[in-house]
């Protein structure tokens, strides 16, 4: 059984999730990982579903012309630690950036992280008034000089007139 990546975009309204997931179920697709958020008042969903999904059939069953739906079969296998491989190798950090909105904030900050092999595993950005906010979950290789990385982040933050905090995740393992 294959995997498909489904994306849904449209103006937010009540019932979008119910309609999309209902249509997927009718198509025999099983939702595995999914995420949904609102971007500037637009609903944005990404789903990884198992089953042989026919995009045309999905759109027909959905019957929602206001939603832009794509569905693509993907070759990739799940890259998770389903086999009991344990937690990721890196160390988890949370990055916060806030300051005046301007082009290039994400690229500048993410480039600093990438130079040290940092992997952004989750990210959310919000623009509210003049304030631009970026929060990112970051996995760092264990051998990274975190103090030096933080100094480079501070330099980038200053060049963007933005405040940057970078702190380790404190997981509560119960």
């Amino acid at each position, binding site marked *: 059984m294959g995997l498909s990546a489904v994306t849904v975009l449209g103006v937010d309204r009540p019932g979008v999730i119910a309609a999309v997931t209902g249509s997927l179920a009718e198509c025999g697709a099983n939702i595995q990982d999914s995420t949904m958020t*609102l971007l500037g008042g637009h609903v944005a969903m990404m789903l990884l579903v198992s089953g042989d999904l026919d995009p045309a059939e999905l759109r027909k069953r959905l019957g929602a012309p206001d939603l832009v739906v794509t569905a693509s079969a993907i070759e990739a296998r799940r890259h998770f630690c389903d086999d009991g491989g344990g937690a990721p190798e890196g160390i988890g950090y*949370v990055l*916060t950036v*806030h*300051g*005046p909105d301007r082009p290039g904030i994400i690229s500048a900050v993410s480039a600093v992280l990438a130079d040290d092999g940092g992997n952004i595993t*989750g*990210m*959310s950005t*919000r623009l*509210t*008034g*003049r*304030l631009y*906010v970026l*929060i*990112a*979950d970051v996995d760092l290789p264990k051998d990274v000089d975190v103090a030096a990385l933080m100094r480079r982040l501070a330099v980038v933050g200053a060049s963007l*007139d*933005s*405040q940057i*905090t970078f702190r380790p*995740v*404190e997981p509560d393992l119960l």
Partner: protein
Amino acid sequence: MKGTPREVLGAPHPVLSAVAEPVDPTAPEVMAAAADLLATLRQEPGAAGLAAPQIGLSWRLIAFDAGRHPKARSRAGELVVANPRLAGAAHWNGGREGCASVAGLTADVPRATRITVHGHLPGTGEAVTIEADAFEARCIQHQLDHLDGLLFLDRVPRVLSLHTSLHTCDA
């Protein structure tokens, strides 16, 4: 002393990112600022606290009144504290908070639910110790962060802890 409500600054603003200066609680200008801070808090809808940087003063002054909040347990009442200092903190817990200076966003932020704060009362300069818990403790810690140039955004523990909101409320 009757204060005058001032405009609440919104982020981004340099004063909100600066470490505030200690004050002489008996100085007339500090007493006036304390009165203005309180007057601003009283007219700020939904806000349970404010810090002097939020009205453009980089001074270590906070005002809060958590008494009417349904989540409050300790209730010190309406209070302005100069040079507040966190002396004890325990029992961390997460809670959703927003800020009068950050419209449209809230976040689940871990804070101590039991705190001890030392400071001085503006005017007399009398030393005061506040034992706060629950919502009042969260509110005071939020204001203390403002004095150190921090917003609640700087304490968001993970991406999924950030939320959009349709209204603004402080702590």
